[in-house]
């Protein structure tokens, strides 16, 4: 497995873990979406995400052969470009869908969480698209 595919897996796992915990706690009602509790939880989630990604990336660098860590070439650049295009459209659609909660009168804190969820979904889409394309060899 190349370093770039490992990076995509690391993104999927860490984002699912950290933001899964954040949105899970909000959805379950353990933390109220409005207030300092949510802010602290979000800060902890982001810090955990950064630390986890740093540690896992360092492990990936140590366990990936030199050729797997080489500068990305034309095929990898094409995969990165295509995956970001897919992620862009997912973000575009999910942002447009934000008009629904706005019209139902959701409070600003909820809307901010919806925006954050849109970003998380688009990041996951980019990483999953990369994994699929790397696996296919395309």
């Amino acid at each position: 497995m190349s370093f770039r595919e490992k990076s995509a897996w690391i993104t999927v796992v860490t984002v699912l873990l950290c933001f899964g915990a954040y949105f899970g706690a909000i959805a379950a009602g353990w933390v109220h979406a409005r207030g300092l509790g949510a802010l602290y939880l979000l800060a902890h989630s982001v810090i955990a995400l950064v630390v986890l990604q740093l540690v896992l990336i360092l492990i990936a660098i140590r366990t990936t052969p030199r050729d797997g860590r080489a500068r990305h070439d034309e095929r990898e650049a094409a995969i990165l470009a295509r995956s970001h295009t897919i992620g862009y459209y997912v973000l575009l659609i999910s942002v447009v869908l934000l008009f629904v909660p706005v019209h139902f009168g959701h409070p600003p804190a909820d809307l901010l969480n919806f925006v954050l969820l849109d970003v998380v979904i688009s990041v996951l889409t980019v990483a999953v698209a990369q994994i699929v394309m790397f696996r296919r060899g395309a």
Partner: protein
Amino acid sequence: MAVPIANQIRRLRFDHGEMTQSDLAEKIGMTRQTVAAIEAGKYSPSLEAAFRIAHVFGVRLDDVFQWTE
């Protein structure tokens, strides 16, 4: 989806002292995974990369790649 371009990279590597995919990748400035994808017909390289591959083996472009449709 497989592209309609056949290639002789596996045979050419064999003819050049069992050159590994990593060796070829290093010579043309690509990753081993990309060389494997080209060899398997899953990825069509750019014209520049195709010429680089032909240059490494010292053959013409159509000795490496053939259009199959």
